[in-house]
């Protein structure tokens, strides 16, 4: 990249700035958003002083469509969460399966994954773990296998839809995937992975599930049926609008914003309270990190990775997809998956393949599935350990790694086979 002074811009300091942001984010020295804002300020200052970009250009790197989709979905999910719809459904399902340990593991796992398809991973996990721990104490069963299953399934859930996770939104928008299109590429893989994972977890935990269950006095679930129905309707509305957006070819972000406005207007909840509870750390992080990536692209700092991938794949889309899948999967073992997804997007854009659907799908799978390998890389695992300990259950963090690493390897291997079949890469 040549600056306006006609000199070639050396990308080294930009890459060092990027590395600093990643380090700050991983070390949690600051909140994620502040780490990214510091990095964005630094890289924009480098870019402007080198004449590589203007300040206006830097502002244009903020992906408004992504932010609109993210905030729209967050508002709807917050309103639905307040309606208690997920709590009611999860309680119904878990209580139905309460006296049959194997069924309970499967029901809990499925409920966790399906809840996290729509709720954030954090909200989904807190809900399921709170249910398991409150029923576990009263029912005298060991909640550890069920809570760990929940954490793993929450991490898995949300891979298959455009709104399932923030990396999905970022990749989906860049790839130009509509909601139905995204689901058609990735949802079958996610559902198949549910089956594989639950089977493996059942085999692993079956000895620990045969504990005597106390008879529980099950009272009626006390929630407002009107609120539960309202939440279900708002979810249905959002999903319908997202599908309609795909068919009528208007942006998913518009559908999400329309759903958010409807949710705020129809729910009767205090709008400002809803706004206060949104995950602004993720919103600001996403905005700032898209600026960082924009600056890196402007000075062609990520070109090296694209060239390496291109060379290693040797023109084969199957090999390039596998590389994206495994490299992004391995990277998200150590790094937050949003950093991995946002960093890989320009690399895929640079690859010279006409049909990039397998590559985008590989990135979604890789960045979503790498999260449970190590406790440090997975917020849901850490939350599960913390909640179990607060309730007096002792759990060794590395015991989850012993399950997480082989599971991640199995997921990635399964996904590679899925990609071969789904996109006819054989």
């Amino acid at each position: 990249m040549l600056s306006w002074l006609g000199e070639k811009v050396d990308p080294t300091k930009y890459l060092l700035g990027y590395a600093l942001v990643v380090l700050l984010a991983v070390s949690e020295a600051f909140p994620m958003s502040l780490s990214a804002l510091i990095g964005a300020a630094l890289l924009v200052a480098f870019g402007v002083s080198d004449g590589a970009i203007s300040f206006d250009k830097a502002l244009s790197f903020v992906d408004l469509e992504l932010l609109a989709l993210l905030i729209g979905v967050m508002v709807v999910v917050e309103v639905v969460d307040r309606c208690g719809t997920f709590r009611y459904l999860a309680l119904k399902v878990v209580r139905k399966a309460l006296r049959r340990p194997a069924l309970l593991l499967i029901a809990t796992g499925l409920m966790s994954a399906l809840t996290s398809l729509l709720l954030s991973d954090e909200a989904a996990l807190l809900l399921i773990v709170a249910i398991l721990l409150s029923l576990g104490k009263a029912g005298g069963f060991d909640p550890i296998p069920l809570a760990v299953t929940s954490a793993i399934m929450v991490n898995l859930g949300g891979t298959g839809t455009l709104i399932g996770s923030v990396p999905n939104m970022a990749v989906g928008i860049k790839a130009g995937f509509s909601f139905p299109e995204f689901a058609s590429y990735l949802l079958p893989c996610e559902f198949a992975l549910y089956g594989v994972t639950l089977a493996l977890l059942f085999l692993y935990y079956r000895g620990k599930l045969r504990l005597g269950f106390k008879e529980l006095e099950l009272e009626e679930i006390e929630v407002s049926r009107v609120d539960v129905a309202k939440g279900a309707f708002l979810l249905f509305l959002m999903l319908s609008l997202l599908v309609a957006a795909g068919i009528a070819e208007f942006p998913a972000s518009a559908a999400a914003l329309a759903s958010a406005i409807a949710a705020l207007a129809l729910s009767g909840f205090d709008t400002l309270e809803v706004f206060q509870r949104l995950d602004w750390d993720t919103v600001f992080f996403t905005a700032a990190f898209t600026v960082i990536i924009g600056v890196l692209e402007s000075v062609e700092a990520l070109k090296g990775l694209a060239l390496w991938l291109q060379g290693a794949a040797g023109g084969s889309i199957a090999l390039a997809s596998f590389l994206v899948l495994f490299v992004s999967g391995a990277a998200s073992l150590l790094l937050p998956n949003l950093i991995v997804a946002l960093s890989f997007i320009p690399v895929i854009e640079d690859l010279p393949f006409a049909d990039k659907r397998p590559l985008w799908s590989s990135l979604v799978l890789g960045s979503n599935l790498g999260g449970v390998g190590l406790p440090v890389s997975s917020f849901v695992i850490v939350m599960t350990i913390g909640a179990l300990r607060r309730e007096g259950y002792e759990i060794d963090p590395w015991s989850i790694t012993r399950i997480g690493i082989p599971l991640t390897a199995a997921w990635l291997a399964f996904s590679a086979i899925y990609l071969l079949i789904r996109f006819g890469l054989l």
Partner: protein
Amino acid sequence: MAKMEELIEKRFKSVEEKYREELDLVCEALGKPCIILHVQLPEGCEEYRELFEKLPGDEEFMAELQEFVREALKKKAEKQAREEAQS
């Protein structure tokens, strides 16, 4: 290992309030209303901080607390009934 424990504690603390809220909502939905009490470490017990932080997970302590609450509620109800009868 110590670093890992520190990280787990730090991260969980950032969501602990939300977790307690969720736990209360679940208890309430199950017909068992909860109240949240913020109890400070009593003065002079600074050296027992670690034990203090483990109390919410201590079943024996929770059973004693439950008994204490039961007795307190009975006393309050009796007092209220006496006052109502007098007035």
